């Protein structure tokens, strides 16, 4: 029987990732079985929380105060967890997380490489609270910042504090948040509006979703604080169409906050009114662009317009508007509560605070990571991400979403902040980081993003619509073996025109993936065009596989892995690939223990 403590907390992750691997079953079963278990006399609290960031290893279950974290838990494990861990304080080895960097199993997830280097501000509550419980939020200093603002601070003092903190918008270009609020506060046109951009559209990025799902109240609190400082009484949350759980949790939190007097008229007796409304996104990537987003809230087609008059002056319905993204809002309450100086000390001089990244691709640990600005890219990939899957050679990362750029391994030490990334020709964007290994073809990557953007551009202006289409045509030609030397020049020159002549940020950044891959991987382009060879083995027309006689030991592993029996050879003898049968799947290439399978160029001219 357990007598270590009379209070226990069990946190079951119920973010979208873990829910997909049936974490709700785990939660229900734990709840049900703990209630009826006669052996348990301790007081147990069980909570369904938001995402812990390591979804791929989910469902995640954390037990406090013992600080035991279990990964990949299924409903089948519940009995054992109750019997061994809850009742007897025993640790179940099988469910612990194996840290590949430290080469050992980890009991408390905070000791794992993935979490150790993180510093959580925007994500501070996620995974620790039940998003549907405003009480949980209040317990962790929730709405204290709002209280402070409404009763102890003048609007201008709030803006001063945000400005002094150096916080820059976390959604893309990194515009100073305080400056935006200050400019908007100066216009005497009413009503003014506050908008939360929750239209996260980058493939693979889910930081905004996870904050809306896991800690909705922090967004609400941040927005009210802004409303107070610029004298606005109305806010909108624009949430991406696909984000059902996020919308549900936000809706629930807004309702609850209203009931408890944190939203609506006369907020907590202060005399200040502010209310929020949720708007369902239009489902297009371009709606993340601020002017398209506002058009969409107004009920018009989600098309950007020229921003020669800024939205702080004439935004939503032509009224002064402050728009920030989800992560930015989540930073506001801690800044107010702990002060600008506290925030300033985190990160680097011009880039204070932390940034949430979504780390994906060919890296061992994928997931959501919050680290101080200025952390080196290599730390993110190797210390937190624990390096490349199967320890293959690392090649590059792509940052900033579909219109970000690719950074080669030579620049691994670049600090992750707004300035350094744009100096590299890439950008922070919303914080997507895609890790690539030697089996990634950089020309194909550029082509892939052009294809994505050709569908997601709003299509309004010639340069963006037709320019991306032309780039896509050229890149398709190159990857299919019809490239010509002049193509590289056309891509570069056209890219520059698209960047300066397009109307909105989507078009202005769209050529980034093409231009940075040409800049850093020109050899690969040349290889495709001149040698008709894709050395990553991705462009099928430009790839053949052969086995190097000198090094093949005849183990037969390649043969076993070939799905079409294209490989012949007896054990301990040199194996041979029949080019006519081979479908170029690359299995043998990655399977051979001696690296004897090599990639050759095109078999035919295209």
């Amino acid at each position, binding site marked *: 029987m357990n007598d270590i403590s009379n209070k226990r907390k069990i946190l079951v992750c119920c973010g979208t990732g873990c829910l997909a691997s049936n974490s709700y079953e785990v939660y229900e079963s734990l709840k049900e079985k703990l209630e009826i278990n006669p052996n348990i006399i301790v007081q147990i609290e069980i909570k369904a929380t938001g995402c812990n960031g390591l979804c791929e290893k989910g469902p995640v279950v954390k037990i406090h105060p013992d600080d035991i974290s279990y990964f990949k838990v299924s409903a089948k494990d519940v009995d054992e967890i109750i019997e061994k861990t809850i009742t007897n304080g025993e640790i179940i080895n099988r469910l612990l997380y194996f840290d590949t960097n430290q080469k050992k199993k980890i009991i408390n997830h905070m000791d794992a490489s993935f979490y150790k280097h993180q510093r959580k501000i925007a994500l501070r509550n996620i995974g620790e609270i039940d998003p549907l419980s405003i009480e949980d939020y209040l317990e962790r200093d929730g709405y204290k910042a709002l209280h402070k603002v409404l009763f102890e601070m003048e609007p201008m003092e709030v803006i001063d504090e945000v400005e002094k903190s150096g916080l820059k918008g976390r959604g893309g270009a990194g515009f100073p948040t305080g400056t935006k609020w200050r400019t908007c506060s100066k216009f005497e046109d009413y009503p003014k509006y506050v908008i939360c951009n929750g239209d996260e559209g980058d493939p693979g990025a889910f930081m905004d979703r996870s904050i809306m799902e896991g800690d909705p109240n922090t967004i609400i609190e941040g927005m009210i604080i802004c409303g107070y400082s610029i004298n606005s009484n109305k806010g909108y949350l624009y949430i991406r169409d696909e984000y059902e759980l996020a919308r549900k949790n936000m809706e629930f939190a807004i309702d609850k906050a209203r009931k408890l007097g944190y939203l609506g008229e006369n907020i907590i007796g202060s005399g200040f009114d502010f209310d929020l409304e949720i708007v369902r996104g239009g489902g297009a990537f371009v709606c993340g662009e601020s002017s398209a987003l506002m058009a969409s809230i107004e009920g018009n087609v989600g098309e950007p317009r020229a921003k020669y008059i800024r939205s702080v002056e004439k935004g939503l319905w032509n009224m002064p508007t402050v728009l920030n993204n989800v992560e930015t809002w989540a930073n506001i309450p801690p800044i107010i509560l702990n002060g600008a100086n506290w925030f300033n000390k985190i990160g680097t001089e011009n880039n204070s605070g932390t940034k949430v990244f979504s780390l994906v691709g060919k890296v061992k640990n994928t997931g959501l990571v919050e680290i101080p600005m200025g952390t080196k890219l290599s730390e993110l990939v190797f210390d937190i991400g624990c390096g490349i899957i199967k320890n293959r050679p690392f090649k590059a990362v792509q940052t900033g979403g579909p219109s970000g750029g690719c950074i080669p391994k030579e620049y691994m030490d670049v600090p992750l902040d707004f300035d350094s990334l744009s100096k590299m020709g890439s950008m922070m964007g919303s914080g997507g980081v895609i890790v690539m290994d030697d089996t990634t073809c950089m020309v194909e990557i550029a082509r892939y993003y052009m294809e994505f953007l050709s569908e997601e551009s709003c299509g309004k202006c*010639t340069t963006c619509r*037709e320019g991306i289409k032309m780039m896509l045509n050229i890149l398709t030609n190159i990857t299919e073996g019809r490239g010509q030397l002049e193509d590289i020049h056309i891509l570069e020159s056209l890219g520059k025109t698209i960047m300066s002549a397009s109307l909105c940020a989507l078009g202005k950044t769209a050529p980034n993936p093409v231009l940075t891959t040409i800049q850093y991987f020109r050899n690969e382009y040349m290889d495709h065009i001149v040698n008709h060879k894709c050395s990553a083995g991705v462009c099928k027309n430009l790839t053949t596989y052969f086995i190097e006689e000198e090094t093949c030991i005849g183990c037969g592993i390649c043969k076993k892995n070939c799905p079409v029996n294209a490989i012949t050879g007896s054990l301990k003898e040199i194996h041979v690939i029949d080019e006519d049968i081979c479908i170029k799947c690359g299995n043998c290439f990655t399977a051979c223990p001696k690296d004897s399978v090599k990639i050759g160029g095109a078999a035919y001219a295209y």
Partner: protein
Amino acid sequence: MLIKINGKVYNGHDGETLMEVAKRNNINIPSLCYKKGFEGLGRCRLCLVEVNEGKRKKIVSACVYPIRENLEVITKTEDIIKMRKDIILLLLLRSPKNEYIQELAKEYKIVSPERYIQKENDDCILCGLCVTACEKLGTNAISMVNRGITKKVSTPYDDPSKDCIGCGACAEVCPTNAIKLDENNGIRTIWNRDFDLVKCSVCGKYYATEDSLNFIGDKLGSKEDHVCEYCKKKSLASKFKKSFQNIY
């Protein structure tokens, strides 16, 4: 307020766009999606100019750029010409068979690289003028649908539109003559729909669709005589003449 265009000072009013000032003073800024009396659309991107607002130079599109005090504008720089050429090249690849675009390309000495010409010719360059024209009438029969490279102008679900009155305003504003308007035996066909034409009661020529005359009639709340523009002008002119004659 005073602004400087290509070194010369001009007068402009608050709320005017750069394009409006330029047009008023006969300064040529190439454009495809701008039409006098319509608000700028910013779609074709041909009207790029360089502006200097004290600190920074930037490239803006003149048709949507609101002028402000002390603005300095240059309508032609090497960079801008290069960009315009690229834009016209892109339009030429989209509409290789369109004579208006071909003419423009000739003017800018652009030959399209054979390998990149698109197979299907599309005469529409998505300037948006037709949609705006129809919107201004209050008919709203056509709109831009889809996004990205599949964007196009269309009636709802590509079906013949109930709201279209066959007035032909859309076809008239189209800079590339992309909207098909056929007239045969008293029937006008536009946007996949047939409209009966009405004859002018003076000269006897077909001159407008019945639907459009009804639409105007409903709007004005009165029935007008069926007289075509030409005959209206003629009769106005003769009335003038008469009244002059009466004076002298």
